[in-house]
């Protein structure tokens, strides 16, 4: 059964206006900047926050409809839910937290605890069964909350940043468990995350929510192929420059970029450049690249063997190179550098 969502709600600084459908067995990831309204959307679908005006339906079960006033209370929606904060019931043990749902749906205490225990084992946290939430570490608490959401046979999964407190291997483990569980359940799952790997790994489709509106929706591959906004591009580690195209030159403010072969008509257009295809130089480089400009290093993010250098002025661009490569140039934050990229590496799409 399909989860059909249509929500219009005032969030103070902006409006939440979302229309979405999540099919049975589909994992829809909602990703977006802080304050975009992801949590508000999820809580609206759950029935915990008002939806303003609109309609939420699961198959032919109407959960909320502000035109008819129909409302199905939260507890009757059979949700598997991980709230963004304060997920656990503080006065219950971990075991009883996980057993709470099954017990609420009518299982005996014994059966519910048994089920909960199995679930905890699946998550490798059975040793925490008797602990109280207050004494758990952040990551432990989050794993308990996820276990609790997956237990029983929820109709719809609503997970709000389920992996934000997890360490790397726990993240991978939880992602695998989530993938298995949602596939086995064959129910709609709505997953909010900030983590691009979560989104690309788990999301059958990814909806990008910015300032209350969905700016792009599609598979990870589709998004990576043609990111529509700077946020998506940054998320996927791609540079995006909006500008006006005339012939083979895209102009964005005072910045001009010669682009590769294309069939895009003149006018508003988007150019994307992979961070690895840009080179950095200490002084003006000689040679073939058509695009060469002077810029300043704003910040440098490091991973084990690579660095991502963020340039600002005249345009924001991220450049990825090896640590050794950066050392060879010998520049740091705040320094001036020259950047270059071949026109053939600049892909242009319609605006």
């Amino acid at each position, binding site marked *: 059964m399909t989860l059909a969502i249509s929500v219009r709600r005032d969030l103070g600084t902006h409006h939440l206006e979302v229309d979405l459908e999540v099919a049975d067995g589909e994992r829809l990831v909602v990703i977006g900047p802080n304050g975009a309204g992801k949590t508000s959307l999820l809580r609206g679908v*759950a029935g*915990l926050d008002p939806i303003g005006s609109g309609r939420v339906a699961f198959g032919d079960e109407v959960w909320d409809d502000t035109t008819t006033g129909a409302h199905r*209370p*939260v*507890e*009757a929606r*059979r*949700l598997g*839910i991980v*709230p963004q904060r*304060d*997920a*656990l*019931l*503080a*006065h*219950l043990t971990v075991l009883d937290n996980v057993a*709470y*749902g099954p017990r*609420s*749906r009518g299982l005996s205490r014994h059966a519910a605890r048994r089920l909960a225990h199995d679930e905890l084992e699946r998550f490798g946290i059975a040793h925490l069964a008797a602990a*109280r939430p*207050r*004494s758990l570490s952040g990551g432990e608490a989050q794993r308990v909350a996820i276990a*609790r959401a997956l237990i*029983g046979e929820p109709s719809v999964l609503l997970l709000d940043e389920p992996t934000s407190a997890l360490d790397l291997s726990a993240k991978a483990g939880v992602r695998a468990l989530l993938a298995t569980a949602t596939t086995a359940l064959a129910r709609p799952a709505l997953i909010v995350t900030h983590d691009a790997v979560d989104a690309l790994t788990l999301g059958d489709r990814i909806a990008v929510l910015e300032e209350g509106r969905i700016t792009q929706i599609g598979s990870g591959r589709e998004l990576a192929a043609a990111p529509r906004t700077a946020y998506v591009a940054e998320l996927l580690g791609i540079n995006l420059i909006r500008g006006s195209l005339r012939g083979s030159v895209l102009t964005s403010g005072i910045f001009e970029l010669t682009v590769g072969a294309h069939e895009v008509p003149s006018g508003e257009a988007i150019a994307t450049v992979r961070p690895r295809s840009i080179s950095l130089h200490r002084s003006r480089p000689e040679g073939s690249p058509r695009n060469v400009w002077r810029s300043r290093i704003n910040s440098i993010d490091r991973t084990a063997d690579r660095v991502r250098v963020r340039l600002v002025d005249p345009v924001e661009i991220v450049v990825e190179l090896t640590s050794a490569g950066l050392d060879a140039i010998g520049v740091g934050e705040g320094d001036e550098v020259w950047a270059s990229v071949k026109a053939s590496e600049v892909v242009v799409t319609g605006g």
Partner: protein
Amino acid sequence: MTRRRNVLPRVLLVPAGIAVALFSLPIVALIARAPWAELGSILTTGDTRRAVGLSLITSLVTTGIALVLGVPLALMLARTRLPGRRIILAVCTLSMVLPPVVAGVALLSVLGRRAPIGRLLDDWFGVSIPFTGAAVVIAQLFVAMPFLVITLESALGAADRGPEETARALGARPWRVLATVTLPSVRSALVAGTVLTWARAIGEFGATITFAGNLPGVTRTLPTETYLTLQNDPDRALMLAVIQVAVCLGVLVALRRRWTPAITGGRP
């Protein structure tokens, strides 16, 4: 977990000490002045034992009924947008404000034999409430239940609603939310309100005597017995008061044993 440092300003010990002195010195004086030699004779008196028994039974029944009626009222006041919310809260408080004797008169004006509701009860069921144990309980309820309602209402109003939402999201229906989340989250206020209600009920005297009367074994509670004894034999009355204090201390300590670990258990 090992040494936990004091986070309170030291000076607070001074007013706290004065408060303790204020509470304890009169009790100590009472105990010191009481004629302990008479203890045996008082304890073996049928009147005293009947009064103690009646006081214990009626006050516990009152506390039970107060819970059954007062908890729902507190929930309604704190959790729903009842129209007359504030007025009801204020009216709850008024029964504490009335001098107990007036409270008794007010009760008689409703449930007395000639009063509107009392007459109906009498005509239809042949039931007359004054002069019965039921009247004792009603009088105690009227003056003591507000403590439970007000204490609990304030705690419910202040409690975080997050856990209730979580419980509902996990599929818990209203009754289950109430039993497993809402009430446990205000457990200490519930205990405090219950203790206050019970203490006020077992100490009640003015409203009881006015509404329920005073018949040994039926409506004569320990406070009434004490008051009467005070008329002729003040020393013996002090001994009765000490017995009252001892009985209450016993009940409180027994209750605290059962409740306190549950309250403080969660905290490190």
